[in-house]
């Protein structure tokens, strides 16, 4: 089975801190994605990557950046965390035709 691992299940940070969310997949997938999930809004795409060192903005990239130095690892960076970035963050890798495999998520609280 494909395994997508997110480094933290829960994270509490202060406003202005730099935050790193890490995601690792073990199936050699080329495409990886970061979503945030908020009640009533569903999943919104922040950034995605279709190859090492390649990245594209999703629907809500403001306040975020990403890094993909190795194929298996896709990191989401909050340069200066703000309270409106409190959310559930989901990483996914893509195998086959469009099928997404998700990690368990990181619930980030910014105080």
């Amino acid at each position, binding site marked *: 089975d494909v395994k997508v691992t997110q480094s933290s299940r829960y994270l509490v940070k202060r406003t202005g801190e730099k935050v790193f969310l890490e995601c690792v997949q073990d199936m050699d997938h080329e*495409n990886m994605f970061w979503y945030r999930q908020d009640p009533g809004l*569903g*999943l919104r795409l922040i950034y995605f990557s*279709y190859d090492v060192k390649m990245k594209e903005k999703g629907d809500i990239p403001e306040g975020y950046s990403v890094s993909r130095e190795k194929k298996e690892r896709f990191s989401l960076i909050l340069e200066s965390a703000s309270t409106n970035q409190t959310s559930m963050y989901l990483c996914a890798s893509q195998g086959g035709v469009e099928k*997404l495999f998700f*990690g368990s998520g990181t619930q980030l609280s910014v105080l």
Partner: protein
Amino acid sequence: TQLLEQSPQFLSIQEGENLTVYCNSSSVFSSLQWYRQEPGEGPVLLVTVVTGGEVKKLKRLTFQFGDARKDSSLHITAAQPGDTGLYLCAGAGRRSNDYKLSFGAGTTVTVRA
């Protein structure tokens, strides 16, 4: 605005009852997927429908893709408490190289024992 509209937003039923969840859009999709998400976990793919008018069955779950590939429905027969979860539909773009998915806001289903 949500590209995919799901209804209802919440659904609470008794064990043994049937339920239907809808996913509608004004856009055409090359395929549509349904995911189920349980608390504290990421979404897990249930099914992918590709052809307009397609019907797929997964035990007590029946998925239908609209003829125009703009809408879909999920029907659960004789629901069980294990069916409780957040059901999400997701559409893939019309172009063959568009692998990004657009998600609906989800339907929270609660099945009471």
